[in-house]
């Protein structure tokens, strides 16, 4: 090729500072990677690791009962021992756990048919409408939804009014009301992963199962559920962990009942015992770690 024809072609772009930086980045993948993840990594370390470490350390301090000041000099396991042995904390932990478990089971049971309808039965148009309908409650404030349930369940509220002719009574304020409200609030977080999981199951697998002679129930048990398991676990992690840490709903509709969150809140605030609050906060964290480890063993996290 002669020089003349080369010059007749489009001249290469001019060398600018930005281009030089780009060129250097394209040559050094490690630098590129470092720049990409350094900011989020720093954030993670600060927010998660440091905050958790601070919590653990705080749990080892005590409060001077006379002045109310934090005593940072004496390191003690008293708080942790108290949390593990005191009957009150055991009761509240069990109560919180069973509420979280009940909410999760209810949400999964409600979410499965809804998600199945959305993913496999509804027309594309209806599907879009349903996705929006599921997402809409997320746009409303958590407090608004909790208070909405408070008024619904109240004396002479919607439930009583509608249920009266049928002899149905409102459960009133208490643990059932907490379960109902929490199940309602976290439901979208369970529907969406299960819906996404079902979308990934090809229809032909369902056809194939049916083709080979499997009835509906058999197909659900042998094909859909095993494939959907990771998605159900993902949804369950949301509803379980969110319920485990909640203390507002129980204040609004729970009557006199307390959950772990309330104990943390009271101790960190009114009772002015930050070390005990920290020690209590370690309970749901430990439960979640055990839960996730158990889930990991089933292999459900591999497909997330």
């Amino acid at each position, binding site marked *: 090729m002669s020089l003349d024809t080369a010059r007749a072609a489009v001249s290469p772009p001019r060398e600018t500072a930005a281009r030089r930086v780009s060129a250097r980045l394209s040559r050094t993948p490690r630098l590129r990677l470092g720049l990409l993840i350094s900011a989020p990594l720093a954030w993670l370390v600060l927010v998660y690791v440091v905050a958790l470490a601070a919590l653990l350390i705080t749990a080892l301090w005590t409060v001077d009962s006379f002045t109310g000041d934090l005593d940072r000099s004496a390191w003690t396991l008293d708080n942790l021992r108290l949390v593990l042995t005191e009957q009150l904390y055991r009761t509240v932990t069990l109560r919180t756990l069973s509420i979280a478990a009940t909410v999760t089971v209810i949400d999964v049971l409600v979410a499965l048919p809804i998600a199945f309808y959305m993913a496999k039965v509804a027309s594309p148009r209806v599907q879009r409408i349903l996705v929006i309908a599921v997402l809409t409650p997320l746009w409303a404030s958590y407090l608004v939804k909790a208070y909405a349930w408070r008024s619904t369940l109240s004396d002479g509220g919607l439930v009583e009014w509608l249920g009266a002719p049928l002899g149905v009574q409102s459960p009133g304020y208490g643990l059932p009301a907490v379960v109902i409200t929490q199940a309602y609030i976290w439901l979208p977080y369970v529907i969406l992963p299960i819906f996404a999981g079902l979308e990934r199951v090809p229809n*032909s697998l369902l*056809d194939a*199962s*049916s*083709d080979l002679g499997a009835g509906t129930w058999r197909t659900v048990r042998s094909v859909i559920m095993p494939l959907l398991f990771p998605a159900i676990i993902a949804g369950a992690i949301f509803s379980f962990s969110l319920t485990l840490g909640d203390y507002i709903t129980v204040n609004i509709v729970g009557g006199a009942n307390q959950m772990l969150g309330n104990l943390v809140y009271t101790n960190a605030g009114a009772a002015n015992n930050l070390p005990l609050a920290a020690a209590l906060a370690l309970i749901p964290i430990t439960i979640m770690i055990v839960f996730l480890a158990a889930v990991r063993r089933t292999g459900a996290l591999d497909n997330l």
Partner: protein
Amino acid sequence: MTASAGTESPPIAISLRSVTKRYGDVTAVDEVDLDIHDGEFFSMLGPSGSGKTTVLRLIAGFEHADEGRIDLAGRDVTDTAPFDRDVNTVFQDYALFPHMNVLDNVAYGLRVRKVGKRERHKLAREALDTVRLGHLAGRKPHQLSGGQRQRVALARSIVVRPKVLLLDEPLGALDLKLREQMQVELKQLQRELGITFVFVTHDQEEALTLSDRIAVFSEGRIVQLGSPAEIYERPRTPYVASFVGTSNIFDDATSRRLLDRTGTHALRPEKITLSPLRGEAPAAGDDEIRVAGEITEAIYLGTGQRIHVRLEDGTPLVVLEQSKSARHEPEHRGDTVVAAWSPADLVPLRGEVAPLTEMEKS
């Protein structure tokens, strides 16, 4: 459709009577009548959207007919669920269960039928041996190649001994070599098992190679039904003539001008011979039609040459020349030639020239 009346035909495995299926405003299957015989290799051929796959899904029971009636081995199954029908399907995407290994996939139909574990594993292994995959029984589907998955899907369907096997473009995702190999294996398998195969494809060559009979679909209807030779040699409409293989199609005006006949005619490219034009004008003989023309394109195919000729009146013509020996002199662009063919090779067609014709010629 013309059944070979008089000759004794085997019992009917599948029968469709004016079956119609609509999706909204679209009529996917339009009053289709069809009889498929026991032990037959039957192909449904057509472009995508012609309704062939819908007919297959109607037979399998995944879709329900809006009108009409479907019988399987004499039993009305129009409203029967797929799991109560004695047919099995090999899916286009194979539809293997990703969470089960190959053996469990194949044994699934037996497990559903409550066959004991030992027995069903034994039968599944036999089925896997039939498709020569016995050594891969412990693998997961994602560890297999496309051809292997295909065979697992086949084994999974035949292990339950269906009377009819439905195959929905099963070779579509395979590369050419593998496809040709699988075609042979499918044909052998069908002979060995002696069960009815209903095969959906858009590949006309595949349909011609494999089938005992072919139904050509267009816009939800069967436009022609017959043996591969009938479909290829005696296409009834311009659509069939151009969809199955390549055809030169002469419309009414061209037929009058060139052939001195009325109506539309089809002529297969391989029935035409070309010879160099030497001075004298071509004379039309009784046993041969001869027309002069110029070569506009000569494409080397390996097995021969595809030559595009513009006849003296402007009509385009495609000619397929087999190279029988290496010394065969290739044709060149710009050469003037005489195209000759026997009037017996002209196939009279019904109906107007379909738009597809032009597409196929290019």
